[in-house]
C-alpha cells in the first residue's frame, strides 16, 4: 500500500509531522518496518524517517558513553571507541543480520522494534544502559530494562523518540561476552545471552546476565546473577547458576525452535559465557 514519506532534518520538525498525522510512524533504517509493511502486518499512512537527523547519529564518549539511536549497526561493529569502551556491544553488532542489513539498521531501530530477539539489547542490559527518550516537552532517561514491556512493545508513547542510549563506563575489572545461537550464522537468535562479570580473585563481585529470545522481551536474569555473586565462583556455583538460568527464562516453542531446546541453550550459553570470561578469553 502507498504511504507518504517524510525526511525531517530535526527532531522538532519530526514532532510537528507526527502531531499533524497521528497515524504516521517513525522509521530509521527500515530493516524491520519495511519488512512488516511488505508482509501487510502494518499499514502506516505515513513514515517519518529519522535518518536525516544528525543529532541522533552521534557517539560521545565522555564521563558516560552516549550512543545516538541513529547510529548504524555497522558503526557499532567497527567504531574504535565503541570497540574499546563496550566491546560486547560491537560483538553483538557483528552478529546482527547480514552486512547489508548492518549498513542501514540502527541501534534505535533494533531497540524500538522491541523484538525479544533484538541482538543489541542483551549487551546493553548487562551494562545497565539507560534509554534517553526525547519528547516535545523535554528529555528523560529510564533504565533500558524497563524500556521493553512485551513482544514488539516498548514504553514509548506516541510522539516520543528514543534519542540515545547512555552507559556509565564499566569498572576496569568488568568483562563481558555475548553469545548467540542461530540455525545458521546469519539468523534471528534462537537464544542469545550477554554476561558481564566483575571478579575479585575467585569471587564474582558483580554479575549481569541478560537474555534474548528467551522470554517475551529482552530480559535480565536476576536470580542467575544473584547465584553467580553468592560466593566462590566454582563449578558447583556455576551448575546452580546454570539451573537458575534454565528455570528463570520463559521461552516459547515456535517454527524456529522448541522451548525445551531454548531453555537448554539458556544454561549452556550461560556456562560457556562464564567460563570464557573466567579464562580471560574475553574482556
Amino acid at each position, binding site marked *: 500500500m502507498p504511504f507518504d514519506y517524510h525526511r525531517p532534518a530535526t527532531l522538532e520538525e519530526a514532532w510537528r509531522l507526527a502531531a499533524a498525522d497521528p497515524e504516521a510512524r517513525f522509521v530509521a533504517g527500515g530493516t524491520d518496518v519495511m519488512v512488516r509493511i511488505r508482509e501487510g502486518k502494518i499499514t502506516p499512512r505515513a513514515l517519518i524517517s529519522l535518518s536525516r537527523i544528525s543529532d541522533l547519529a552521534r557517539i560521545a564518549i565522555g564521563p558516560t558513553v552516549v550512543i545516538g539511536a541513529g547510529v548504524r549497526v555497522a558503526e557499532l561493529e567497527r567504531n574504535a571507541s565503541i570497540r574499546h569502551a563496550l566491546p560486547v556491544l560491537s560483538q553483538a553488532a557483528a552478529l546482527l543480520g547480514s552486512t547489508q542489513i548492518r549498513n542501514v539498521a540502527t541501534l534505535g531501530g533494533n531497540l524500538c522494534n522491541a523484538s525479544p530477539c533484538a541482538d543489541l539489547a542483551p549487551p546493553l542490559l548487562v551494562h545497565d544502559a539507560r534509554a534517553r527518550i526525547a519528547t516535545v516537552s523535554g528529555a528523560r532517561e529510564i533504565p533500558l530494562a524497563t524500556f521493553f514491556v512485551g513482544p514488539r512493545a516498548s514504553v514509548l508513547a506516541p510522539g516520543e523518540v528514543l534519542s540515545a542510549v547512555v552507559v556509565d563506563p564499566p569498572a576496569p575489572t568488568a568483562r563481558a561476552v555475548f553469545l548467540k545461537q542461530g*540455525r*545458521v550464522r546469519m539468523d534471528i537468535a534462537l537464544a542469545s545471552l550477554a554476561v558481564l562479570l566483575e571478579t575479585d580473585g575467585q569471587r564474582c563481585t558483580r554479575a549481569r546476565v541478560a537474555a534474548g529470545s528467551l522470554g517475551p522481551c529482552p530480559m535480565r536474569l536476576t536470580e542467575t546473577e544473584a547465584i553467580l555473586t553468592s560466593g566462590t565462583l566454582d563449578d558447583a556455583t556455576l551448575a546452580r547458576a546454570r539451573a537458575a538460568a534454565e528455570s528463570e527464562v520463559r521461552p516459547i516453542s515456535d517454527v524456529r525452535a522448541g522451548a525445551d531446546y531454548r531453555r537448554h541453550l539458556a544454561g549452556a550459553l550461560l556456562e560457556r559465557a562464564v567460563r570464557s570470561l573466567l579464562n580471560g578469553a574475553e574482556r
Partner: protein
Amino acid sequence: MRELRYVGTDAPRPDAADKAAGRAPYIHDLSRPGMLFGKIKFSEHASARIKHIDTSRAERLPGVRAVITGENTPELRIGFLRDNFALKKGRVRQFRDEVAAVAAIDPDIAAEAIELIRVEYEPLPAVFTPEEALAEGAPLVHERDADGRPVTTNLLGVQVHHESGDLAAGERASKHIVEGEFSTPLIQQACMGTAGCIAEMDVRGNLTIWAKTQIPFLAQKDFIRALEAMGLSGRNARVIVPTLGGAFGTGLDTHAYEHIAILLAHRTGRPVKVVYDRREEFANLSPRQSARTRVVQGCDAEGRLTFRRVEVLQDNGAYTSWGATYPTVMLIPATSLYKVQNVWFDAKLVYTNNTYAQAMRGYGNPEVTWPIECLLDELAEKVGMDPLELRLLNRNTPGEKTPMGLDITTCGLGECLEFAKKSLDWTNKRGKQKDKRRGLGVASLVHVGGSGRIYRSDGGGVILKLDDFGNVNVSYGGVEMGQGLHSALTLGVAEALGVLPEKVSINPTDTSTCPWDVGTHASRGAFIALNAATRAADKARKKIFALASEIYAAEAKKSLAAFQKKNPSYQPPAYDYAAAARADNLELEAGFLFPKGAPDEPWLKMEIGKVLRALHFRGAQGQMIIEEAFYEPPSTLPDWSKGVGNMSASYAYGVQAFEVEVDTETGNVKILKGVSAHDVGRVLNQQTLRGQVQGGLAQGIGYALYEEVKTHEGRVLNPSFTDYKIPTAHEMAFPVDIFFAETNDPAGPFGAKGVGEPGLVPTAPALANAIYDAIGVRIHDLPITPEKIVMALKNKKKG
C-alpha cells in the same frame, strides 16, 4: 579421436560475464508491449467446498482488465495424472489452490484486486499425513480420478515394485542384519529466480509463452492441449525459455500459474505476466517430496551384503506432479548401490491435503541413499569392520549387471572411496577423535550418468548452423538453468567441429527453432546435447570437406598468389593440390581448414569463414552448412511393475566424506573438511564441473542440516528465508577436496557422464555417519538440527 584442445580445460562459462554484470535477462526483467500483470487468489483452506466467489469489487477496481475463476473459464486439467485444474471449481484440496486470478495494468493494482475478491468456503474434513490418509474411513482427497471413475482410497495408482533373487535366502545367509526407518522433509528448491512466465496470444489464437521450464517440448504439448480445451484446436504453443535463475526440478511440470497466464492473455488479448514473489514461491510452488523409508539389509560374517529390503511411503500432497515417478529413480540406489543380490523394493504415494510436491535434484535418490548409507555404518559396526572398508568390499565394478538390470559399463567408485580415505587420513582418524568430539563419515552414490529413460523417447536433437563469418550457432532444445550446459556445449562443439570456442554461440531455447528434446532432467543435458552435437559436427565436417575439396585447390592458389605479391622473393614448395584437396585428406582444426600433412605454409591454411563464404557465393552451386542430428541413447524404458530395465546408457558413481566437530552443548555441527569425489567419465570443463559439485554440496548440506518446509495442517509456516534457512558462505567456509575419476565411458560424449545431480545425493548420510563417529548419536529424521542433536544426547544420557 583427435587430441583434445578445449574439452577438459577451465575456460570461463560463456554466460558468466553477462550474469555477473546484471545483463542476463531473467523472466523478471522481460516485458512485452501492452503487457498486463497477473495475480492469483489462493485458497484459505486445506479442504473445503467453495460456496461462492464474489469478484464484483475486484472487477470495478480501475486498472483491472480481467477477473477469472473456474466458473467463467474453460476447464484446464493439468498434472502428471491430470488430477489438477488451473482454476478450482467447487472444491479446494490444499491451501495453495488457485481459486481466482486477475490481470491488471500494474502489479499493485493486481494485488489490491486480489484482496477485493471474497470467497465463501464450507470447510471439509482433511488428512495431513499418509497414515491418516490410509486409515479406514479417511476422507478422500479425490473422489474421482481424471477419467471420472470413482476412487476408494487415497493411495495413488502410480506404484513401483521390485523383487529380485530370494529375500528369505538372503536373510538366512546373513550373519548380521540392521534395520531402521529414516525420513526426509519437504524441501524448497530455493531457486535464485522465482517462478514466472509471460503468455501472449496472437489474433489467430497462437500462443507464445516465455516460461521457466526444463521441458520446453513437453510443455508445448501441455499448452497445445490447453489451447484445445479453450476451443483453439490446431493452434501452436511456442515455448521460449529465458535466462533461468536455477530450476532444480521445479521446471519438470507445467504449472497452474502458467495456464492461468494463458487464460488471462486469452481473455484480455494482451500479454500477461505472472511472477511469484518469494513468499508465494515458498507457499505456492511445489517443494521436494517428503519420504519415510524403512530399510533392512544384511551381510555375512565378512561384511558382504546379502540382501536389502526398501519400503518407501511418500506424501504426494493434493495433486500429482512428475515427481510421482520418484520411485523409478529410488530403485537405482535400492538395487545398484554396492553389490547386493536379493532385493525387495516397494514405494507407495499417498494423497493428502498438504501442498502437492514435485521433483528436485536427485529425484528420489537422496531419499533412499540416506537410510541405506546410514545403515551400512551400523552394519559395519556389527561386523566390527571399518565402514569405508565395508564399502570397498561391496563396491560396484565395471561389467556388472545389477538386480535392476543396470549395465555398469564403467565405474570409478573404488577410486573415489580410495581418494576419500587418503584425503581425510581416514585410517588414523576415524573412530579415534571422540575425545575432541570429532568424527569422520563417508557415503557413496549411484545415479544415471547417461540420461534416464522415463519417457518413450529419451532423445534430443542439435542443429549446427555455420555462417559466412565462421560463427557456429547451436540450437538445442534442452535448458541452461545455471548448471553450465552452455559451457559444456560450447567446448564440445568447438572440439568436435574443429573451430575456436569463441566462434560458438548457443541460441536461446525455443520450441520454434530448436529440435525436440525430452527435457533437462536426470543429469542428462550435457550428455544428450553433446552426443547429438558431436554427431551433427561429424556430418558438418563431412559436408565441408566434400564441398571444400572442389574449391580448395583454386582457393589455395589464389592465396599463394596474394602471398607472393607481398613477398616477391618467396618460392613455394612443390605441392600436389589435387591429392591434397581430396575430401578424406582435409582437416579442420582451431578454425582452419588444411590438408593433412600439409607443409606449415600460411597459404595452405584456410580460415573456416573464408571457406564458408567461398561455398556460399558459388552462384548456382552455392551451399550453406547447416546440419542436425538427433540422439537417442541406448537404454530401455524399464518395466515398472517389475522394476527392471537398463534405464540409462551409463551410471555415475561418487563418494562424499566429511570430518566434523560437534558442539555437544549447543548441538552445532562444524564441518572441518569435506571430500566430494565423482566418477564423471570425462571432465568437460574443469571450472563448471567444480561449480556443479560445490553447488551440489551446498545444497546437500542444506538438506542434511538446515532445510525443511514446515507445515501445520497443510499451511506452510516458514514461507521466507527468515525461517527457511539455506547455507550461506559462512556455512560453506571449510576446505573441500574435489576429485574426478575419469573412467572414459564408451556411451559418453568424449567419455563423459552426466553429473548434474550427484553432488547432493550422499551428503546427508556422510554427515550423519561423521556425527555418529564423533558423539555416538544417530539422527533418523532430516534435517539434523542442533536441537535434535541436543535432545538425542539428553535422551541417551537418560538411557
